[in-house]
């Protein structure tokens, strides 16, 4: 039994962010450590609800009340076990997930929600520190071989689940290192790469084979893939960026956000010696108000940008939950990420009408204020503006997986939304070929990716073994509540 009055006794606290001048000088994670004792107090705020909306809000179905109680009572190992029961990589989600669970926390109705994400990260980190990542190789071998294409969170989750069920799993990554977006998409200050590497070490020890620099479909012909493997799981993500079709798009200095982040991360980790797109000393304008935009924002500041401006087509959301997103749905409100505190500024309710250039190099951007309606935008007359810019980063989202090569050759069907069609067991129209993560769902959060990877693994296992005891947290069609 949880402490029934914890929420009346304690206030919400989350880790402090390091001082801005300090953190701008390095790429280390921005949060200060948080003590075990304080974490236990935060966990004690959990009310152990009859309907834990947080547990629904989390696509993984994390057993949040269970591990909050275990933490409160100082049972960290069991907490880690309960956490890993639904989540292969809590150390990733504890850092990277925007925590829809907290948006649906019941305590959030009339109070501040429980610091769920904090507790999750603390459990995960403490487990790592105490040997919790010891490999758990399968007790049996089925003799079945599975290829996982893509090493982002969906692919890794599927791979780990399948390996533990006794299958022989190989993960193929076209990039030079394993991790997908977690390696090259997000900035280091959000997650230390050592966190990723430790988990990969565990998986390697559990028998997962990783093959990098291998674009399946080109480097490894599809026919060979199908011959070699009993099953294939496509976890290649949604990588085609949404474009901005305005004049000046082809000017130099108008770049895709993901291109910018990837090369920045490569440079940082030392696998690239060049930094082709460097924000240092430049006026940076980021188009797109989402998380990728914020990642660019923090990266640009650390690179020493002269200014950073983030444009959002939506009007500025309120400081507290907007009535259009009542509890327990994911709240629309003004989110101020760590990066936003560090400098620069945000402009809301604007649309870019064209880029201005000089010598093929972008110099500015024309904007108009207005209102987003559906997928359109209604400009307000007389609100045109101009903004100087010498680096524009397009962070407008992604429209689906790349079809050329692998997908076309596999012959998998693509739906109208540009994603791969799958059945209830995550299998595509091609027998034995499964899909998980953004490639099937469209762009989404890391928790959805992991959940999909886990569910698809259950589908693969059942396909290969005639039945599966692997957990299956998610229907392919499941959506967040709206």
């Amino acid at each position, binding site marked *: *039994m949880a402490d*029934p*009055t914890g*929420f*009346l006794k304690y206030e919400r606290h989350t880790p402090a962010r390091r001082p801005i001048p300090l953190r701008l000088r390095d790429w280390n994670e921005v949060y200060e450590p948080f003590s075990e004792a304080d974490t236990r107090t935060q966990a004690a705020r959990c*009310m*152990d*609800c*009859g*309907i*834990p*909306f947080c*547990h*629904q*809000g989390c696509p993984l*179905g994390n*057993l949040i*009340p*269970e591990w909050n*109680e275990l933490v409160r*009572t100082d*049972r960290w190992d069991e907490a880690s*076990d*309960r956490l*890993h*029961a639904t989540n292969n990589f809590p150390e990733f989600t504890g850092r990277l997930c925007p925590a829809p669970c907290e948006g*649906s926390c*019941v*305590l959030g*109705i*009339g*109070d501040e929600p429980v610091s769920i994400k904090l507790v999750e990260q603390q459990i995960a980190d403490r487990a790592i520190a105490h040997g919790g990542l010891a490999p*758990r190789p*399968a*007790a*049996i071998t*089925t003799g079945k071989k599975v290829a996982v294409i893509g090493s982002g969170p969906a692919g890794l989750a599927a791979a780990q689940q399948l390996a*533990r*069920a*006794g299958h022989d799993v190989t993960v193929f990554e076209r990039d030079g290192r394993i991790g997908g977006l977690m390696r090259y998409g997000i900035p280091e200050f959000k997650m230390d790469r050592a966190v990723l590497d430790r988990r990969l070490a565990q998986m390697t020890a559990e028998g997962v084979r990783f093959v990098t620099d291998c674009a399946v479909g080109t480097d490894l012909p599809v026919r060979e893939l199908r011959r070699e493997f009993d099953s294939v799981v496509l976890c290649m993500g949604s990588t085609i960026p949404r474009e901005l079709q305005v004049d000046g798009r082809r000017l130099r200095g108008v770049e895709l956000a993901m291109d910018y982040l990837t090369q920045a991360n490569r440079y940082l980790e030392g696998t690239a010696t060049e930094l082709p797109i460097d924000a240092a000393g430049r006026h940076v304008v980021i188009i797109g108000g989402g998380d990728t935009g914020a990642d660019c924002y923090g990266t640009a500041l650390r690179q020493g940008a002269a200014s950073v401006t983030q444009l959002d087509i939506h009007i500025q959301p309120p400081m507290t939950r907007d009535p259009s997103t*009542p*509890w*327990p*749905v994911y709240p629309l409100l003004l989110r101020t990420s760590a990066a936003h505190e560090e400098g620069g500024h945000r402009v809301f309710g604007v649309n870019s009408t064209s880029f201005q250039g000089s010598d093929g190099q972008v110099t500015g951007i024309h904007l108009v204020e207005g209102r987003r309606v559906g997928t359109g935008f209604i400009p307000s007359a007389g609100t045109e503006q101009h903004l100087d810019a010498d680096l524009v980063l397009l962070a407008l989202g992604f429209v689906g997986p790349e079809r050329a090569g692998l997908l076309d050759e596999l012959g998998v069907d693509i739906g109208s939304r540009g994603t791969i069609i799958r059945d209830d067991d995550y299998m595509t129209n091609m027998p034995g070929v499964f899909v998980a993560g953004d490639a099937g769902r469209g762009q989404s959060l890391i928790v959805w990716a992991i959940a999909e990877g886990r569910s698809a693994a259950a589908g693969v296992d059942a396909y290969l*073994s005639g*039945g599966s*005891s*692997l*957990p299956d*947290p998610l229907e392919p069609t499941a959506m967040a*509540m709206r």
Partner: protein
Amino acid sequence: MKYSAVPERQGLYDPALEHDGCGVAAVADIKGRRSNKIVADGITALINLDHRGAAGADPAVGDGAGILLQIPETFLRAVVDFELPASEETAVGLPAVVSPEDGIAQAAGDNGPGGCAFAVGNAFVPTDDRERAEAKRLVAKIVAEEGLELLGWRTVPTDPVGAGVGQMALDVMPSFEQLFLASPVRADGTRPSGIDLDRLVYPARKRIEHETAAADVDVYFASLSSRTIVYKGMLTTHQLPAFFDDIRDTRVESAIVVVHSRFSTNTFPAWPLAHPYRFIAHNGEINTVRGNRNRMRAREAMLASPLFPGDISRLFPICTPGASDSASFDEVLELLHLSGRSLPHAVLMMIPEAWENSRATMDPAVRGFAEFHASLMEPWDGPACVTFTDGRLLGAVLDRNGLRPGRWWLTTDGTVVLASESGVLPIPPEKVVERGRLQPGRMFLVDTVAGRILDDTEIKSTLAAAHPYAEWVHAGIVPLADLPARPHVATPHEAVLRRQQVFGYTDEDLRLLIEPMAAKGAEAIGSMGTDTPEAVLSARPRLLFDYFSQLFAQVTNPPLDAIREQVVTSMASIIGPEDNLLDPSPNSCRQISLPFPVIDNDDLAKLAGVNSDGDMAGFAAAVISGLYEVDGGGQALFDALARCRREADEAIADGARILVLSDRDCDAKRAPIPSLLLTSAVHQHLVRQKSRTKVALVTEAGDAREVHHVALLLGYGAGAVNPYLVLESAEDLAAAGLLGGVSPLEAIRNTVYALGKGVLKVMSKMGISTVGSYRQAQVFAAFGIDEDVLEEYFTGTTSRTGGSDLGVIAADIHERHSLAFVSNGAVREHRGLEVGGQYQWRREGEIHLFNPETVYLLQHASRTKQISVFRRYTDTVDELSRKGATLRGMFGLRTDIRTPIPLAEVEPVSAIVKRFVTGAMSYGSISAEAHETLAIAMNRLGGRSNTGEGGEDVDRLLDPRRRSAIKQVASGRFGVTSAFLVNADEIQIKMAQGAKPGEGGQLPGNKVYPWIAATRHATTGVGLISPPPHHDIYSIEDLKQLIHDLRNANPRAAVSVKLVAEPGVGTVAAGVVKAHADLVIIAGYDGGTGAAPLTSLKHTGQPWELGLAEVQQTLRLNGLREQVRLQADGGLKTGRDVIIAALLGAEEFGFATAPLVVAGCVMMRVCHLDTCPVGIATQNPVLRARYTGTPEFVETFFLFLAEQVREYLAALGFRSIQEAVGRAELLDIAPAVDHHRARGLNLAPLLAVADIDSGHSCTRPAQHDLSSTLDAKLIVAAADTLADGTPVELAFEVRNVDRTVGTMLGSEVTRKFGPDGLPDDSIRISLTGTAGQSLGAFLPRGITLTLTGDANDYVAKGLSGGRIVIRPEENSPSQQPGQKAQVIAGNTIGYGATSGELYLRGRVGERFAVRNSGALMVTEGAGDHALEYMTGGRVVILGRTGRNAAAGMSGGIGYLLDADISRINTEMVDVEQLADDEQVWLGEVVADHARYTGSRIAFGLLAAWPTESRRFSRVMPRNYRRVLELQAQAAETGVDADDLIMEAARG
């Protein structure tokens, strides 16, 4: 059934579930002088008990009346045309010096006096001449074969027309013939007579019963004896003497008569069901009868008696199949008596007193008698007042709880009158020598030969002296503790985990169920009911236990309060082989006594190894392994059960006397048979083999982990249960340090205790006091199990709707097993146990109707007034329903039968919402904000909200906008005042609540905030108890009385009765309608917003669909449906739910959870913790500030809902709900067939619509005429006072049929003058005579009732400021100096009084001043449980007080003269000296008592008050004193007293 119109089983109606209640009386001449006057007096008494009986839809069809008397020999000789053998002597002629011992101990053994040399009996025979001739031929043949002489037949003259017998009764009326038998003359020239002759006649009658039944000839003997004769029939009390000419004949003489007026829960006449039976007339219910019958059947194999020469098996079955509980009791009593025990002896075997907990106070010999007989026979348990006679002795006994009333009088001319109530015979006061009452577990006995009344002590010590019972017990019975200990085996964690997986343990089981038991020894509490699928509808593997639900007592008998009245309960039992019941000897008790039905692993080892040292001859044990090949499915399970049965037979043949049924040691191939199936299968088999009583069954069960599981195992045959895995789990949790310092040993002990204690609560819900009689009693309902499986393995339990067969059960086992033993050997990393999700919603767990999505959509829709979102909500809920979350989800709506109509033609939303009510939630359980939200919304809509049981604060009571139209009257009677009732549109009697039927509740002190205390007339910071039973409803006729009381308290309000669905609720509802309720609420088990033990929350009661359908069908069969409205309540959420409820028979609809969710509830399920974070189920001001609900939200919900209902009505072709009510033919059960495991489910019985001319809905509401009551006259006489307050004095005579005197007058006072009434003594009423029940109920301030005479039960119930004085007639011999205090009034006096004064000169019965919260009451002696649950007020007892005084008393003060501390339950109170100022105050009270009543006791005390006052002790609740002290402290320091108190209460 013979001579009966009781329908066959059909739809959901089952005649086996009928109940009855009644009034009983007996009259005897103490010297045994026969006269016609005694007979006439008996009939007068019967007629004066008419109000305790009932009539059906046709007032001319009574529920039954009858009379038992001594054989009127002179009369019979005069009227028969054949010769009757001369009887040697009759009782009348005997000298009066015969010792009483002769009567009680030996009469049975010799040819006792009394009785004729011929036997005579009234037979019910066919009316058809040819059939009757055949019946007589068969009888003659058997009589001859038995060596008896058939002397002749006499046609009993009857006058059905003159008596005005109703048509339904006439249709099934038999012919009446008297059979006369004799035994041939013996060698010595005498003929056997009396009991000797009865022993010869008995086998003949048993054979006639069996052989005529086999020949399909209807013959029933009301009696056949040489000592007594019974006339009875399906008559009203008035009809009985008119019907039988014999009874009116002045030549008929008897010294003893017993009469009985029956109240049945149905309207179907059944002639044999009238009382008296052959030896008894019974007022009560035998709750354990199924187990008693099973055991009698098993015992038959061992029976032998020289008193029944020849093949004894011709007596079998002893208990006639299909007979009533009273009939079975009578049959067994007859066997015990005729086989050599006196009638009192046999009665005490079957209804023992509560001896188990009285080692200190009981005579060891009497205790030995009780203990010895407990090893022979389990108690026939339940509320009972059994009046019995053998023609010489007339006795009566009350069950150990004293749950039926009984009063007696002795007159100067030697007449003894015994009756359910006082005043049944007009006895002039100057002739009354003594007035007494029956007492719990005590026997009252008149020996008409010895010519005196024997008291209980004398009877028992005489019986106990016959044999050295205590020595036999000491030598024979081995306490479990005395068996040699075996080593304790601790199981490693990994093994525990594996076993937990096999048996389907979940993480939730460990967290919510097992941890609290292991840590604290207490069962876990939950809130907000349950909204998960029935086992048979679930998509998940469910334990077999889940298919069963616990039965509970409602209306026809009371649940017990096992906590406060623990003194009468026992968890101890005796297991082991039984011997010949008819030949008691030291060998009869070679058995093992168990202090507790749950045993730990070490105790099991003791039993399993009972004779492994070879020194316990006769105690061999054998273990039967309950495993089966899991891959073999249902067939393998079937085969394994057959094997286990075979092995049991073999073990018994080999001499085993303890069989351990074990599911241990499963592995990858072999899975455990569900322990319940294993136990019951073996048990039923042994019953059939008649070898059951040779062995004890002990179940070693891995799957049993909840109270419910253990209760089931006991109920279906286990003598003891060793739930080894839950104990190992507790040990494992403790060893891991998870129980906060509780050691492994303590954890085991705690768990054993919690499980056993929980079973006690389960038993008491059904009104069963001892585990000895609970065992094998099968008081459970099954739903969703295949009929053949039930018939074979759970014989006697029926489900009516089919369901899962062994194949499905095996598939579930396989699924659990495969999680523990994954088929390919893979390990499920991080996945120890499944998460669960039965109690708290989990994604991987069971589905719940309220889940994050449905809660969100409902709140969003009602708060933003978006009907489109509301439709998403209902679509989602209905889809979950279809997935199995509800039974109604299995139904389809047939829109193809009637032509749909345009929506515009359907009645408007405004008409539909008037049929909506919100559920009973007390102010106290929920906040003022939430409570008023519902009330305002319902008042605006024209529906009704409900106060719940917490009263209503005066501010709201008188505000038409904010008040609740329904005022609830529950067992705690909190704030039930005259003003409360007068301001009601509907008064609802809560018999049970869905979340925890059969249980009471408790509001802990820390939730009794000042404003709650004020509303409930209680004390801030002092906890409040709602007892399980209403202490004024122990039977159906009591409910009738309460309805009458409430109707008098507000004649303008409808009176409703809330029941919870369970099998048999239909017959209960029929009884309730016959008790004159206007509205019956059928609640499902699932709803319920209150806190409840998790066992109750999940496993008690059934869905309302079943209950409502059964009620609808039963009321229609009874022709009662048109006079009552029905309401469905429980988890209604959508328009579809409403329309299905309407089609099944409901015309009103109750909602609780859904409107609460609308108001902001998020199903935290922590209502019991006062931490509701949305400000609903809390009184904490900080949390209440978070409340966000408004009446508008609730209105929107109901308007949307009504709109949806309109759409369904249009689609079904109805213009209004009224048209749709009861039209079950528009429901379709095709969807159920497709559902996963519900393939075997047949829901057709729910939809059965009998093709009879009987309405579907309420079209002729019952009219209640109060114009001929005494109060109607009082109101006229007090007209001036009612107009302007002019004082008035009135005088009236009163009789026992004048019930609830003063109440309707009081309601007029309150209506006119408000809650404060009038100045004291404004209306003074002098009454003389015997007042009927409920004198002065709810009497408001301003009225003084002074009764000279005596009164019955329930005086001053709910006293609301008035004054009541009762004093005996001064001229009665019983009042002469030197006489002890006489009984002046009955049981349950002053129940729920809130203010006012009561002065009683004389003694009263049980539960005096129960739940008094503010009145002053004085009496001169009280029975058991006085001052129970008191929360306020002052009580003075100037005489002896019975056992268990002050149980549950949390407030008020008691002043007891010469208090016997051993009789006071000091759990919550201290007994202490009076303070000086108190002595002064008490002196004034005693002086008032003297002044009002003329009490000699009071005058005596006052004469020397300074010394006499020291004889008083003060009974002071500890919490109450603390509050008084804090108040004093606050007064001194000037701080707010309430703040101080609440601070202290929160700790």
